[in-house]
């Protein structure tokens, strides 16, 4: 018995030790040491790496990785499929778990500086000659108050009206030349939406309502009705300024779409995915979005690319603005100098250069073409201030262009439009407050618009602007 007891103790201790080792091994580091791996190579973890579900793109990127590493034997590229998501970004950045090169939308340009999760890349940008060729306004958006730069643009776009041509044609909204009638004002948009609903039974327009997407989209309408959402006072504090007759008119426009014209989608709980899905599956004829989402409609929802058209943002009674958006590259703030150098080498290799890498542009556009994605003749909103580069792009893309540019010309011309960046402070918080307002307008037929407008402004002021450090 005694011997058995002793053996039991040995087994128990061994089991406990095994479990402990298992636990502790889970806490190990990633193997990186001062930005170098165990082979002494400089490690650069690249985000937005294609997922294995997109096999063709993944194969091409894997080939690029091998080509790059052959040309730079001291650098190890580590793929990371992390893609920006508003729900995970705050946590990932706070925990230092972002890839070394990550992409964020323009709306995060200042927040990544405030959070200290982006490296200062001013000197590298100068050295790479990017400051002379990238759009100056975009560079300003990525800089802090001292003019130091923390990210660089990858793509840019303006919000516009995405149109389902089939539904427009069924409703008779067609010009003599066969193109669809793009709404020029928000009043016209509402009329078209009502006409489409009446003629086809499908919603003429969809409005998102949750996850801050509603507020983000409403911004476009409100600006054009003359609304300013916030302003900085002389003492540096911020005041909410949107409870105005102009904002009431904006909400009245939305109210009329819902309750008087019956032109909106039936579902009133619509987040970002449901918003694109509503359009991509033919349940709405118009949404406010940018060209970057056209391919989402094609690849995710199987929409025929020839059914999509884009128009510029309609004009409002007081202004003609469109929200500027896009993607930025940022480098993690904890990178060593040699990692930053290596990251720039990778970006340069991936065509982030003043001069177009024709071979890479050809390969990437051919891939898009082969995968059935839309290839435009040029970037409709380019990040480069360089006409020669644009001409070169046109030449390279010509064999792969697979849309009729007539369907996008109105959007690309963007006549009379002024591009605006998102609100400077508490943008996400503002969108959240506006989501609530939109939900109230769309679900309560007896809504008191001035009352909810005042409450929203007070809430935004008290809960967010007054509590800023």
């Amino acid at each position, binding site marked *: 018995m005694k011997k058995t007891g002793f053996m*039991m*103790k040995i*087994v*128990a*201790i061994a*089991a*406990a030790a095994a*479990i*402990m080792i298992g*636990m502790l091994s889970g806490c190990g580091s990633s193997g990186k040491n001062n930005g170098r791996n165990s082979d002494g190579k400089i490690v650069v973890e690249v985000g937005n790496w294609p997922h294995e579900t997109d096999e063709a793109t993944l194969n091409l990127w894997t080939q690029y990785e091998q080509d790059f590493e052959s040309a730079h034997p001291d650098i190890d590229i580590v793929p990371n499929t992390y893609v920006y998501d*508003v*729900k*995970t*970004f*705050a*946590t990932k*950045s*706070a*925990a230092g778990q972002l890839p070394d090169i990550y992409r964020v939308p323009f709306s995060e340009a200042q*927040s990544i500086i405030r*959070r*200290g*999760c982006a490296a200062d890349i001013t000197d590298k940008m100068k050295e790479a000659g990017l400051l002379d060729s990238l759009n100056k306004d975009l560079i300003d958006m990525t800089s802090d108050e001292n003019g130091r730069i923390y990210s660089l643009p990858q793509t840019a776009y303006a919000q516009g009206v995405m149109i389902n041509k089939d539904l427009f044609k069924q409703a008779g909204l067609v010009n003599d030349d066969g193109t669809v009638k793009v709404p020029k004002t928000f009043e016209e948009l509402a009329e078209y939406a009502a006409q489409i609903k009446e003629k086809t039974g499908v919603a003429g327009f969809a409005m998102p*309502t*949750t*996850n*801050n997407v509603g507020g983000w989209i409403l911004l476009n309408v409100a600006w054009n009705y003359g609304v300013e959402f916030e302003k900085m006072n002389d003492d540096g504090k911020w005041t909410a300024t949107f409870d105005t007759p102009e904002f009431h008119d904006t909400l009245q426009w939305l109210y009329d779409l819902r309750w008087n014209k019956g032109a909106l*989608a*039936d*579902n*009133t*709980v619509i*987040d970002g995915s449901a918003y694109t899905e509503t359009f991509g599956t033919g*349940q709405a004829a118009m949404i406010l979005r940018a060209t970057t989402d056209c391919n989402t409609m094609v690849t995710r929802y199987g929409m025929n690319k020839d059914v999509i058209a884009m128009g510029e943002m309609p004009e409002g009674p007081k202004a003609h603005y469109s929200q500027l958006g896009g993607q930025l590259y940022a480098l993690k703030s904890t990178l060593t100098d040699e990692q930053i150098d290596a990251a720039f080498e990778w970006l340069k290799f991936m065509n982030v250069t003043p001069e177009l890498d024709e071979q890479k542009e050809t390969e990437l556009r051919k891939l898009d073409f082969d995968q059935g994605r839309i290839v435009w003749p040029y970037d409709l909103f380019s990040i480069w201030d360089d006409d020669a580069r644009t001409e070169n792009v046109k030449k390279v893309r010509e064999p792969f262009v697979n849309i009729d540019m007539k369907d996008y010309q109105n959007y690309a011309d963007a006549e009379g439009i002024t591009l605006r960046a998102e609100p400077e402070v508490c943008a*996400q*918080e503002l969108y*959240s407050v506006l*989501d*609530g*307002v939109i*939900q*109230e307008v*769309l*679900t*309560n037929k007896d809504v008191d618009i001035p009352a*909810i407008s005042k409450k929203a402004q*007070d*809430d935004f002021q*008290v*809960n967010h602007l007054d*509590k800023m*450090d």
Partner: protein
Amino acid sequence: MKTIRLKSGGGRRRISGLIKRNISGWMLILPSMLLFVLIVWRPICIAFYYAFFRMQGMQAVRFVGLQNFKDVLTDTAFLQTLGNTVKYVLWSLLIGLPLPFLAAVMINEMIHFKGYFKFTMYLPVIVPTVATCLIWKMLYMDGQGGLLNAILYFFDVGPYTWLSNKNLTIPLIIVSMTWQGFGTNMLLYLAALQSTDQSLYEASRIDGAGFWQRFWHILLPHMRGIILLLAIRQVIGVFQVTEQPLVMTGGGPNGASMSLGLTNYFYAFQYGQFDKSMALGVISFLFLLILTFVYFRLDRKFNE
């Protein structure tokens, strides 16, 4: 002092003796104890600590005393959110508590197909919460695309608004939660029902007592303890409701389904305001601590 030292020394000896005697047992529970401390207690303690600091990302940068608590409690939506959370709890007691009990009573009375009904009623428990939310969201969807409206449309009724109706949104979410949690509660009730003194039950039957008489005079008094315990457990669980409004309504319409848990989630994951999130977490923790204390007191009382 001397006595105390002696006592303390004796205590130490007793503890070390206890550990030596059961060394294998202690070694085996050590990993789970460590895991428990690392994964459960450490974050709770850190959250308490950080709730008093202004944070940048996940770094505490400045001690601010009770400012984070003040910010959370003076948020204009706080009272509405607290009220909503209480509404969730009340609706769950109204819907979620009696239905599994009634189902358990029915199954207990059954002679055939007991196993089948137990199995089918338990089935939703194994469906992941997010999947359940998405199923019910599709069911409740406004317009003719919603499953519920499609069924009503077949009978030429509706369409109605469901989740976007402020007065219905919380009860409808509770219905989906009840559907998912139904099986567990039903099995617990059934276990308690089956431990009823069968001779008493049979005797009452022979004496001519009907179902309702047996229910009121034998089952209900016997089940009082488990009903109360499950009620407290339900209050604690539903007080933390987060995923359901997050997936089904995003907290809308206009905050009508926003709960404390969801507000906490938004503070942390939507706005990156981890300091406020910690403070609200501490406030919720204190609420729940009181409820948990009540639960354990009741549990001990009924087990005695």
